[in-house]
């Protein structure tokens, strides 16, 4: 009797202990995020204004705003996604739908992507500089930067999209085949809409990585902070601007904080927008014609 009681007490305490640890972990994570956010708000909110968002930087960024930098950032991002998305999603479709998990080809492709994912961004920067800027003659330009970022986000986009497609149950493929649908039609009309949320999640991870990138852009898109006239102009990305302000510009702390705040807000907006877009798209593809 006594033994059983002791055991019950032990279980009770163990249960509580696990609960406490779980809550502590969650609280720590939230606290870190809140700390960053509060720090950014305290340091940068006062500096934030409409003019800050649309004006070009003056006096190395101490005065003026980040208008030209926002434009460059968005252009770099668009180039990167425009180049990476079609490549990544077709590669994922090939790996998930046309190549068996055990095929040599698939293993080689997957392994190269894993290696690519582990390469430090500074190496991507040097590669981008050597290949896009010098060999292809694109110079320090938004195009070089965007293409370099495309190489960087490729592994994330491919692996998430492949996982999303693989998560679609085989019964859908079988019934589609039994209805005489071709593999291509099954992929386009059935598997991609079903896997859309995962594709979107991968896309957001990719965007996150691209927007936060600094080192790779230093050597490729450069750090000219003027408004870019074309994709072949050099343009300074937001993350690079923050780095420059906080490291090289005395008295640049306030604009650095404000820029970081804009960067975080931008990421949040992109997140929400992409989620809504996917929800709408999926509803249209799945519920209605």
């Amino acid at each position, binding site marked *: 009797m006594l033994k059983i009681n002791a055991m019950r007490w032990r279980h009770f305490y163990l249960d509580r202990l696990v609960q406490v640890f779980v809550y502590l972990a969650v609280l720590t994570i939230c606290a870190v995020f809140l700390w960053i956010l509060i720090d950014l708000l305290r340091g940068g909110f006062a500096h934030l204004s409409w003019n800050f968002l649309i004006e070009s930087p003056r006096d190395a960024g101490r005065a003026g705003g980040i208008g030209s930098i926002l434009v460059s950032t968005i252009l770099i991002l668009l180039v990167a996604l425009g180049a990476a998305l079609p490549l990544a999603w077709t590669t994922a479709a090939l790996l998930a739908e046309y190549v068996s998990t055990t095929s040599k080809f698939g293993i080689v492709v997957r392994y190269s992507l894993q290696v690519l994912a582990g390469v430090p961004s500074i190496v991507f920067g040097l590669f981008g500089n050597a290949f896009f800027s010098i060999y292809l003659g694109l110079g320090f330009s938004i195009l070089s930067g965007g293409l370099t970022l495309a190489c960087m986000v490729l592994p994330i986009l491919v692996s998430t999209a492949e996982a999303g497609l693989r998560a679609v149950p085989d019964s859908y493929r*079988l*019934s589609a085949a039994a*209805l*005489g*649908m071709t593999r291509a039609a099954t992929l386009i009309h059935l598997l991609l809409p079903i896997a859309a949320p995962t594709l979107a999640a991968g896309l957001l991870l990719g965007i996150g990585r691209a927007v936060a990138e600094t080192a790779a852009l230093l050597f490729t898109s450069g750090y000219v902070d003027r408004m870019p006239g074309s994709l072949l102009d050099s343009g300074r990305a937001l993350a690079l601007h923050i780095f420059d302000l906080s490291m090289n510009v005395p008295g640049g702390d306030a604009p650095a904080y404000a820029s970081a705040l804009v960067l975080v807000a931008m990421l949040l907006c992109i997140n929400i927008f992409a989620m809504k877009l996917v929800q709408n798209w999926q509803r249209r593809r*799945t*519920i209605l014609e």
Partner: protein
Amino acid sequence: MNSNKPVTAQVISGEKSGFTLGPLQMGPVCCNPQPVIEVENLSLRYGDKTALDKVTLDIYRGCITALIGPSGCGKTSFLSAINRLTDLIPNCVIGGRIRVDGLDIHTAESNVQALRQKVGMVFQKPTPFPLSIRRNLSLPLREHGVTRRSEIDAISEQVLRDVGLWDEVCDRLDTVALSLSGGQQQRLCIARALALNPQILLMDEPCSALDPIASGVVEDLISHLRGRYTIVIVTHNLAQARRIANYAAFFWVKERAGHLVEFGRCQHIFESPTHQLTAAYISGARG
């Protein structure tokens, strides 16, 4: 017995029970067996595991043929060989010959999409796509070249009426098909197969994942489709096979490979089987 009723009588009784079938496309030919699927020496291996060994069997036009036997005796493999779904399974090797309507399905010029249009399939677990009811029907139709909206709508309504689902879903065709009950989902899958106007329907235990009432509804539906379609049905429910089938084929595992033991009219198989194994299985002594 149900299976011996002439088809016309079934259509009439069908109208009574709420099913409205279109005009018969094929006559009641069970008294005059005319093979539509001819299987000769079919062997099927997955890697080095033999699933089927030298099965020779004719399936007759307009009839319901039940495949019975214990699990793992190759009934499902036999079924998926007929519409070449086995193509999708890596390492699956097929020997022998299958002819559908006199045409060998494995020759270079045979088109697998066309074959699957002609030979529809319904799976054990209902597998409606996670799309709207309407799109579940329109997607395969579009794939087979029916693109006019009015035509798609007409066919959809017709097949939903054929499976007795129209009254239940006509006001919510745009809701997602997964919101239907299990039995409704299975009938939608049958409707989806019928929409392509097949000649043959392969059914892999279509009732076994359903509750008894839904199972009864689907079973009634299957026997109403007799005559219009040639149906090959795998079932573990011997009573069901006896109720709906005209012909029965009994499979058994011998030396770890599936064999066809006996094939004949349903009545014959169930009442006076030639083979001892069949008798033992039917009576419940084996299997």
